């Protein structure tokens, strides 16, 4: 059972959160950004839900919490309305910089989110291109990592896992490729898209193919742990809890 508020957090921190990585990794996204004549900062403010600002310029995308620095803003009267924007492209209510907002939303933003969907929901055929396959897997990792924190802080079931998680940094990554950090403080989760300097626990996939299989649900996490293809170390109770939240991520973002 999906909770609409939790889904809004998963969408904001997981799906839209991957925009910053898309803009860094994907050549087509970089081409779209080159069309920007001026930087644009757009805030999505969800009533009873998340509020984040996405700052776009020709060099990429950065995301900040809250609405500070936003030159256009879109309000959503409920998490459901925000989720409709993500799933059905139904926009919210422009409350600031309406003209700029609509021009950006219908232009570059739509192009970027279309590209994001193309990469995150690829065809079997497109995955035969190794470079695209790898990009898809890396973006999946960023999306999942963002959604872990989004759900840990909002989904009633994931909150139980969060309530049993001790403080510290958990390093999640694909060996020799990419790492993210899930930081836990007083049972609140924050995803940092950098490698942890002093992780209290580590979960590392042996290679990108394994990571892809896990993200696609084609192989089992526990099975691969038992095969030694997932390196675990440190405070494993933290990893156990994150694994339980990962089950929720699968439910919400499937």
């Amino acid at each position, binding site marked *: 059972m999906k909770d609409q508020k939790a889904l809004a957090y998963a969408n904001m921190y997981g799906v839209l959160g991957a925009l910053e990585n898309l803009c860094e990794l994907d050549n087509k996204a970089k081409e779209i950004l080159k069309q920007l004549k001026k930087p644009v900062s757009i805030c999505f403010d969800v009533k009873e839900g998340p509020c984040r600002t996405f700052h776009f310029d020709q060099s990429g995308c950065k995301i900040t919490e809250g609405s500070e620095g936003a030159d256009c803003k879109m309000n959503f009267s409920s998490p459901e309305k925000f989720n409709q924007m993500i799933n059905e492209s139904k926009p919210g209510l422009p409350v600031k910089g309406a003209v700029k907002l609509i021009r950006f939303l219908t232009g570059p933003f739509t192009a970027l989110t279309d590209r994001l969907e193309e990469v995150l929901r690829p065809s079997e055929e497109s995955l035969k291109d190794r470079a695209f396959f790898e990009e898809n897997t890396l973006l999946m990792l960023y999306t999942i990592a963002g959604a872990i924190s989004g759900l840990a802080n909002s989904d009633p079931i994931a909150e139980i896992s969060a309530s*049993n998680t001790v403080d*510290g940094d958990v390093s999640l990554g694909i060996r020799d490729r990419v790492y993210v950090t899930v930081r836990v403080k007083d049972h609140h989760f924050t995803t940092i898209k950098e490698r942890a300097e002093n992780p209290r626990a580590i979960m590392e996939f042996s290679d990108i193919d394994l990571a892809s299989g896990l993200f696609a649900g084609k192989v089992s996490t526990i*099975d691969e742990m038992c095969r*030694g293809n997932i390196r675990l170390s440190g405070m494993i*109770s933290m990893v156990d*809890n994150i694994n339980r939240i990962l089950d929720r991520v699968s439910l919400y973002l499937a």
Partner: protein
Amino acid sequence: MSKYPEYSHTKSREWFDRALKVIPSGIYGHLGPSEGLFLPLEKWPLISSRAEGTYFWDMDGNKYIDMMCAYGPNVLGYNDPEVDAAAAEQLKKGNCVTAPSYKMVECAELLTDTVESADWAYFMKNGTDATTFSVLCARAFTGKKKVIFFKGYYHGNDPWAMKADYPGILPEDVQNNVILPWFDMEGLERVWQETGGDVAALIAQPYDHGNFYDNVCSDKEKWQAVRKFCDEHGIVLIFDDVRTGFRLDIGGSDRYYGIKADIICFCKALANGYNMSAACGRDFLKAAASSLSFTGSYWMSAVPFAACIATIEKMKRLNTPELFREKGLKFTGALKKAAAENGFDLVVSGEPALFYLRIANDDSLMLHQEWVAECVSRGLFITSHHNHFINAALTDEDIALAADIAFDAFSVVAKRHPESLIKNL
């Protein structure tokens, strides 16, 4: 140069790979790589070929001093001759029979004579069966819903005993569970008020022997306060003695803490590895126990009863709780010494019979995991996350060997991590 060369596990790994093809996770649960935290996998034996006394051998012929004792069932030593002889003799007479064997009656009589709080015994197969039975019994007797747990609890794998975020568990499965910090007397009173007194039972282990943290022993005063609270409110007090049973006190861990539980659950040490568990209860709950629809195909098999009788009689003769305390202190003392001589501080917690270990100043447990892996790969089987178990077959020579392997493993880790030595912190 390491005094104890690392084992290789080629054949064990081949068997494990075969297992992976036909068994989910190869070995699921606490004996497997995932829940058993085999970090890293290649250091662990995975599959055994045989066991005897305090040792087991893997498929490559490597020998291990086993301080996990199959996570508790090995209480007298693997293949104890007295227990095995009693079981073998019973096997010739009959095991799983339409009319249960007289051994069941003898076993129940022995348990009620041995366990101070027990007026009756009800038999099943696993610890989970015993705890589930106890909660059903408490609800049947009181007609109430809620069950109070102490934080960090583990009472088996049935849905009611798990948490809502576990795979396959519904929020409805655990909606009547109330979790409180250990011995939170104000919390108990608050729960009683907030639920309008709808509390059937309080279930707890004798002390907090959870995983990944120092175990915290209880005391008589705290348990007596809980007993008083339960008496005043008509709450059934269930002692989950599955892990600790007969290791702290032959008469039950409730006696060890100066109280009488209403129901006490046993499993691991009950029959030295023969498969059975039991819930023992007080007279006022006997009718409620009789009313339950709760049985299983093998629950009255006679061979485990014969093994149980032989096990309890031998445990009494040896006074295992005293023996385990003495051996536990000796064992952990030797390991602490080995740690100190290599520049580490090994923290020991919990009851000596079920000691828990960790290296100090290592809040990620990574250093500790590394040391544990080096011990296991040299023949001392311990874990990094769970309490350990003493068995009666453990000798002073075994302890000396274990300490020597531990010393060797510490020296390997010390060379690798000089920055972690106490003098360099």
